[in-house]
């Protein structure tokens, strides 16, 4: 799963100025860290839904993405 996130999904999210990192997979709970533009995205839920859909399509696995936003200090008020 880590490799899939890092090699398949992460480059696409980077293309939008975002950043995703694999943190853990416990049962069907996939915890991902979102940085960059993703960290302040108002509609990140749409992206996590897409990730869940892609994982289902590509790996046949049903997961629930738990997003962890790491927002840099200079966006604290954004």
């Amino acid at each position, binding site marked *: 799963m880590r490799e899939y996130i890092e090699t*398949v*999904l992460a*480059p*696409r*999210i*980077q*293309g*939008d*100025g*975002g*950043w995703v990192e694999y943190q853990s997979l416990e049962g069907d709970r996939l915890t991902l860290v979102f*940085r*960059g*533009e993703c960290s302040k*995205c*108002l*509609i990140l839920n*749409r*992206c996590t*839904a*897409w990730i869940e859909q*892609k994982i289902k*399509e590509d790996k046949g696995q049903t997961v629930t993405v738990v997003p962890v936003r790491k927002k*840099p*200090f*200079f*966006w604290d008020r954004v």
Partner: protein
Amino acid sequence: MAHVKVIRRSMRPEEWTKLRFGWLQRGIYENKAEVTDLTIRDARQISENEYEYPDGGERPLRAGDMYFTPDGTAFIRGHAVIPPEFKGRDVYFSLKTAAEMIVKINGKYVGGIDPNRERILLNPYIDRDDLTIEIEAYNRSKPDDERNDAVMSIRGCRQIFEGAYLCTIRENVQSLVYDCILLLDIANSEYFNEDYRKFLFAELSRALDKVDFDTWAGVDEAAAHIEQTIYANTDFKGSGDVALVGHSHLDIAYYWRRIHAVQKNARTVLIQLRLMDKYPEFRYTHTQAYTYETLEKYYPELFAELKEKIASGQFEPVGAMYIEPDCNVPAAESLIRQFLYGQKYFREKFGKTVDNAWLPDVFGNSWIMPQIMRKSGVDYFVSNKMSTWNDTNRFPHNNFIWKGIDGSTVYACVPPTHFITWNMPSQIQENWEAYQDKEVGGQTLSMYGYGDGGSGVTEEMLEMVRRFPKVSAMPKTEMTGGADFLHKNLKDNKKLAVWDGELYLEMHRGTFTTKSNLKKWNRMLEFKLRDTEMICAFAAAFQGAAYPADEIRDCWKKLLLNQFHDILPGSHIHPVYEDAMADYAEIDRRLDAIWAKGAADTWFNSLPFDRDMLTFIPDEKGPVVRDGVKGFWARPNLPGLASGDVQPLEGKENWLSISPIRSEGDLLIDTPLYRLCLHGDGSISNWWEQDGSRQWVRDDRGFNKLHLWADNPGMYDAWDILPNYRDVEIDLTVTEKVRLTYQDGVSAEFTVDFATEKSAWRMIVRLFRDSRAIEVEHIVDWHEKHRLMKVNFGPNILTRELVCDTSAGFVKRPLTKNTTWEQARFEVCHHKWFDLSETGAGVAVINSGKYGVGIEEGEVSLSLLRSTIRPDITSDMGTHSIKYMIVPHAGDAMQAGINNLAFAYNVPLIKAVPKLPEAWRKTICESGLWLQSVKLSEDGKYLVLRLSEQDGRHALVRFPQGVYDMNMLEDADEETFDAKYVSPFEIITVGYPLKQEEI
């Protein structure tokens, strides 16, 4: 009695007007027919015109569906028929989206849609009612302008499709909406007279009172009221004269890759062309030959249309350069090539030589530019940031004359407000009020149009222009072109003030350092291109060899592209960095392939002077490892532009004496030339000449001392270094103190290891038996966040000036902090070296790819590495190798020949034997000038030599045969000459005809 503040909770009259304005906007569309026969295929762009489809095939697309994926392009197709009831009306295609779309209907480019515009007029471009729709759409999460609230609210990589429609509109409602936009902007702006604003609110409210927002009756009456009471009123007088120039700034790469800029550019051009169809008075300016080149290659149909609009004068190419490059880090020859290839394109395709440089977004401008511009057919310079983004001082001019390092001048304009505006009256009034040359400069320049894929000018902006003359309180406005504005107001204007110096931007000082690897590669390839061209050009001119002109030009262009002002400075997302590094590797391979054809066994010295300075020669059998490469040290003793064998320096035993002197691990080191005290951390606390005549460093300051600082510049993370970096120093643990790690009869290496929690840093201090120069190499595994590593030098030199290389001459910068101007320049850009000298002696630091220099009280620091997280989380993470040479010297930098040493430090010997006639070799080498470039002219008729005076002195160069004086565009004078006086810091270009009978 206690003061009780009255808080109004009831609706104010202005809010009532605003509320009704919202209703009015909803009344624009009269009839809407949803386009239901649509399909979409998600794609991901992988090169300029290549896509992959990782998300499956085509699927139906209906309103309410999710569409777009991260970094996503989508191809939308469909069919529709114009409803019969629309017959005889203007029919629009409408689609509200956060994405950027190029729309083709029945095979014709009808227009573009993006967050700033949602409909396209179809009638002029279709000839039947049944429509085949093709949309190329790119969604980017980063809006073109974060000041635009409406756009910010819909950002995101997954979007909800709101439906596509064929529609008709109520023209009178739309027109009234434009009136309201104009007048509400004034009414809400503090830039305008308070009485006029009250008057506007009152009369606008009366106008809207006439509208029935259900039936849309009364709209014409409302418009008439505005015409008769507001536009007819001339009691409120404005002042000023503002030139309005339509423009769309386009970052080739930034929060997107350069492959995406191809479509962004095409859509921008398409939209401007369609506006020109509707508004014949509209004129638009567009920069960067590269963007025209990509349009020609990937959108030939649009390019053909564009050429017509250029010929008619509506569409104006501005900015003579290939792209809008960073103007701090690229060397002089790169800047020249930006003009050469930019102008070459504009001449070939449009028959135009563009006479202006148009660089609104760059992060300051090197002092070498005026000369390069003047010799590239450019008399006018437009920039912006120093007038609007300085953080300390207000730049004192907007329209002025800029004098360069050599005394060349250009007319310059740095408009008083941002280069991206949406042409609102408040922005125009703000521009006039901020304009500082009202008395002498003529009109002030206001650029309008969204940028960065926001696609420039909108219909609304042009409707504003048509209404401006009706508003008496506004400045006078004129829609004009870029060149026309410059010619009208600046040309031959004797009253303009002169700015003699660099155009330093008091912001974005981190861009000299961020993404170290890009800077290092750029420097290396600039010189490798020089050498490659030189070898090929000599071979072609004097041996009749084939000249790989196209291949060399392609390599140059790829390098120039990566000098874009958000690529080389490091202010971009991670994929942009990967693209740039891949490009650099490709250029390197391609140049190697060219070299391989002429490879020889002997070494060629491409420098135009004797090479007797310490030089590292790569050799698999060599005893020294430097920058990961095995080799040996030599003093080649090769004459300039000559080849020969190079032998390792002869070693001598027992030249080095080392004794520990303190428990901290300090070492006292004696060489035949000096005595050195090397601290445990690699810094130098004492550096005495062996005869005791000179101490080079101050023991109360660090010299070659590493400092790790907390680097928190805020939002502009990759861009800025702020003075607060010196507030917090981070512990840098010495894990292994300085110790001797290598010694032979020529050199010795002392190594010290550092670590932070995350990074490992090795410093190698390299001493030489027969030289005072000390080379320092840093090998780094860097994993910091918000840290800045600098190395400080506190020499025992009394001076108040820092002398910095610019790549085409040197600039002296004050070390004092007496004025706010001096204080603001605490971090500056230099090229290959900086020098601190007093009468009779000095210390220079020569680098191989570093640019940022910090000016501190009595000390100078070289900025080595940063670790920023925006826009790229991983910026500068990983391994680095950094080298510099510390050179104590007699005399000042010029007397000590620091320029030559710096060239030698950056230009390796190469395996080649170019056959250069001795007379030519002598001419070049005896001129004392730097041989900046040797190439065949773009037309293949001349051997072109470019020589630059680097030391600030007059020179005379005598050529063995007649040569033609050339400008930097390689236009030759009619007469030949064989001798030329060269002024300080002058760059000359001469052409030697390859066919002598043509002289």
